[in-house]
């Protein structure tokens, strides 16, 4: 009896230790980043784990090496345009596929879902050549355009539209609303939690995207924060102090969105298994 109780207590202690270690390891790099921002590069590469006094120096280095307002504006601009356009165009399509289904459109839908299998590595060369032909190399439009019609987001909206009460739509039709009015005035407000979850996916992808902007954006004044961190950080002897300032600043928006919309965040991440 006592030995059973003891064993159980020991195993629950083991569970807490395991989860505690997992949680600690998960959070640790965030602490490392914040502490690193206050330390000199030579302290960082020695693994110093206490706050230092180099915050101002690091920030000065970062802000003199990088035109930070411009770079953040580039990232923000790309993210905002990508988010608004993706949510609009993909939700229109998801709604259209579900509400106005016809046999031919079903076939197109299946074909469209197949594009989910295309790895980006196979697209980057032809996309680059296409953008060159359009004269869009080194523009933010070129970064945004290929991401706007996302088969995954369209799928996500179509799945969610199945739960959209069609009594609402029928009533609106009786009231004489046009189809686009039904979409913008009724569907959009009713489906705001779907939009929130989709927003998270698109926001995270756009803000953090790397490979495609790396290919398309060539001059320094067009680059995003992700590209800047990468070029500062992949140097042979990076100035880690300045890099830490950059990573902190780049992570703040996503952390903010995460804590502000935690429930939708998880829902967005799970979207694909619904």
């Amino acid at each position, binding site marked *: 009896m006592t030995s059973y109780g003891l064993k159980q207590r020991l195993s629950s202690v083991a569970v807490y230790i395991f989860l505690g270690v997992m949680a600690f390891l*998960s959070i640790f790099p965030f602490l490392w980043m914040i502490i690193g921002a206050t330390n000199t590069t030579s302290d960082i*590469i020695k693994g110093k784990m206490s706050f230092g006094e180099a915050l101002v120096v690091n920030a000065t280095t970062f802000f003199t090496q990088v035109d930070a307002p411009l770079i953040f504006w580039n990232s923000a601009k790309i993210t905002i345009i990508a988010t608004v356009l993706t949510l609009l165009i993909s939700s229109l399509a998801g709604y259209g596929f579900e509400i*106005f289904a016809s*046999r031919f459109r079903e076939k197109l839908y299946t074909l469209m879902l197949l594009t989910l299998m295309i790895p*980006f590595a*196979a697209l980057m060369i*032809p996309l680059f050549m296409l953008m060159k032909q359009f004269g869009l190399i080194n523009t933010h439009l070129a970064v945004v355009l290929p991401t706007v019609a996302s088969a995954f987001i369209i799928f996500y909206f179509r799945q969610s539209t199945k739960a959209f009460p069609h009594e609402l739509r029928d009533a609106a039709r009786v009231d004489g609303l046009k189809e686009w009015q039904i979409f913008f005035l009724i569907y959009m407000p009713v489906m705001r939690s779907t939009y929130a979850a989709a927003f998270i996916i698109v926001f995270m992808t756009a803000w953090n995207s790397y490979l495609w902007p790396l290919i398309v954006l060539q001059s320094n004044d067009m680059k995003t924060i992700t590209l800047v*961190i990468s070029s500062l950080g992949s140097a042979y002897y990076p100035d880690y102090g300045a890099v*830490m300032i950059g990573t902190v600043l780049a992570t703040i928006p996503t952390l903010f969105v995460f804590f502000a919309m935690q429930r939708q965040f998880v829902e967005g991440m799970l979207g694909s298994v619904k």
Partner: protein
Amino acid sequence: MSAISPRRLKPRFDVNGWLFVGPALALIATFMVFPILHSFWMSFQTGLGVRLSFAGLKNTYRLFNDPLFFTALTNTFIFFLVQVPIMLTLALVTASLLNNPDLKFRGVLRTAIFLPCVTSLVAYSVLFKSMFVANGLINTTLIGLGIVDVGIPWMTDPFWCRTMIIIAITWRWTGYNMIFYLAAMQNIDRSVYEAARIDGVPTWARFLHLTVPMLKPVILFTTVTSTIGTLQLFDEVATITGGGSASGAAGPGNSALTLSLYIYNLTFKFAPNYGYAATVSYVIVFLVAVLSFLQFYAARERKA
């Protein structure tokens, strides 16, 4: 919800429907379908830059005689064969421990373990690079704890370089996969566990013989998505090893060269050969297609 509801069988030409789906379809055709067909066509061509000429199967021949391609292929396979099982096991164990409703600090622990997902791949790669430098945090900690006598050559030894990248990817994605398992576990009837517990089935056996079989579909799903993700590994290796920078080499002895990184280098670093790069990219297309087929196959089995 059968297929013959009147809403679904509307065969007539419906202008509204096309207006709604039209923009998206046009964009997908332009930026997905056309490029993938174009790259298929390019894979039969060769030449510098945009001056391509037809080459038949020359690229395929070159592929099979290209040691760098095989290095990249091997590395990519090592990454997913080692990393995906470690990460998914860790995620599954963590999720099943967190699924206990009596657990204290459950929400805090779950949030903490999920948190790596909010970082950008580039940002976390830079952080890991700074922790794994020669006399840096990880090595001083390991020496301090008496685990090793001399620092581990993370940046100069092929084995340890890959290990570091595997640790980094595992850090970033374990919490993400855990969330999928937790969501699936919500649907498992807890009374099954209670009954097993009362019957004296030990914890590990409950995990192995109850949790794992019931989560089989979602385990398959995460396996496929993780594998496809690893097949396309780029941001981490490019940032950590500087393989995306001017030097071109990805880690000691190209130990971190992945297929995506190789395609990028072929296209934008070395004398650009779009045709050959397209051929290499179709290797990824092929691998992803096979894996996705396996996923559909597994999903069919689930319904049956």
